[in-house]
């Protein structure tokens, strides 16, 4: 009897460890399958010989569609994620998500993108390593927008001010194009949120 209890306890422990492994590494397999689809979707819409100058910025993007390609050179030369429109769990499983209703890439206002820190490929795992002045490159359909990191801070999960058009000043009319990245903090916890702000530095034609 006691022996069976012990065996069941050990089995439960092993299953829990396997579940943790699944959360950290298994969930990323889904993201790895979805990202190429989103990136192909973007490439199709960007390609076709259309000159960047003629491509017009989009006014809005349907939920679940690819918004832009996000690159952060500080996190590696091959760091590249397609940003999806929407921030429900289903969207964020596929990649970093753009808050619907916030500014689109390059537009005046706040382009807000949320991404997982530990699960589903953990695209924003290392955004705490971003320093002031680091580049955040956003390849949208019409142009390449390069933002520079201005600030990094930790907030409570309810602090909606960070996604306001002027971060930290809700209700204020925006005059600048800024970017905000949000993820969970500390790692492996949902207690707080890590926020990285940046401001648009330059706009260039996209390099394909």
């Amino acid at each position, binding site marked *: 009897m006691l*022996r*069976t209890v012990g*065996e*069941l306890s050990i089995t439960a422990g092993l*299953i829990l460890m*396997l*579940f943790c492994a*699944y*959360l950290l590494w*298994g*969930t990323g397999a889904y993201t790895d399958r979805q990202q190429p689809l989103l990136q192909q979707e973007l490439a199709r819409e960007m390609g076709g010989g259309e000159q960047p100058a003629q491509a017009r910025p989009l006014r809005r993007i349907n939920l679940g569609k690819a918004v832009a390609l996000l690159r952060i050179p500080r996190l590696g030369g091959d760091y590249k994620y397609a940003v999806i429109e929407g*921030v429900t*769990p289903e969207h*964020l499983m596929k990649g970093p998500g753009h*808050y619907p209703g916030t500014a689109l890439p390059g537009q005046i206002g706040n382009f807000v993108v*949320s*991404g*997982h*820190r*530990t*699960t*589903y490929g953990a695209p*924003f795992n290392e955004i705490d390593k971003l320093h002031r002045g680091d580049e955040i490159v956003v390849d949208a359909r019409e142009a390449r927008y390069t933002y520079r990191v201005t600030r990094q801070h930790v*907030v409570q*999960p*309810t*602090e*909606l001010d*960070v*996604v306001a058009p002027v971060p930290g000043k809700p209700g204020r009319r925006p005059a600048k194009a800024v970017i905000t990245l*949000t*993820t*969970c903090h500390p790692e*492996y*916890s*949902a207690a707080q*949120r890590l926020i990285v702000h940046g401001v648009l530095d330059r706009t260039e034609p996209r390099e394909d």
Partner: protein
Amino acid sequence: MYGWLWRRLPGNTVAKALASGVLAAIVAAVLWYGLFPLLEPLVTLDEVTVTR
């Protein structure tokens, strides 16, 4: 529990060990591909958005 299973597996020790390995792999696969994806949404250790 495992002793009971071990005694019921056929063949010699090597065959029993192989069968045990296969059974463990099947259980792990069912958990990994079947149960864990259903449980994962209930674990909110990676909440990334700000909301009211």
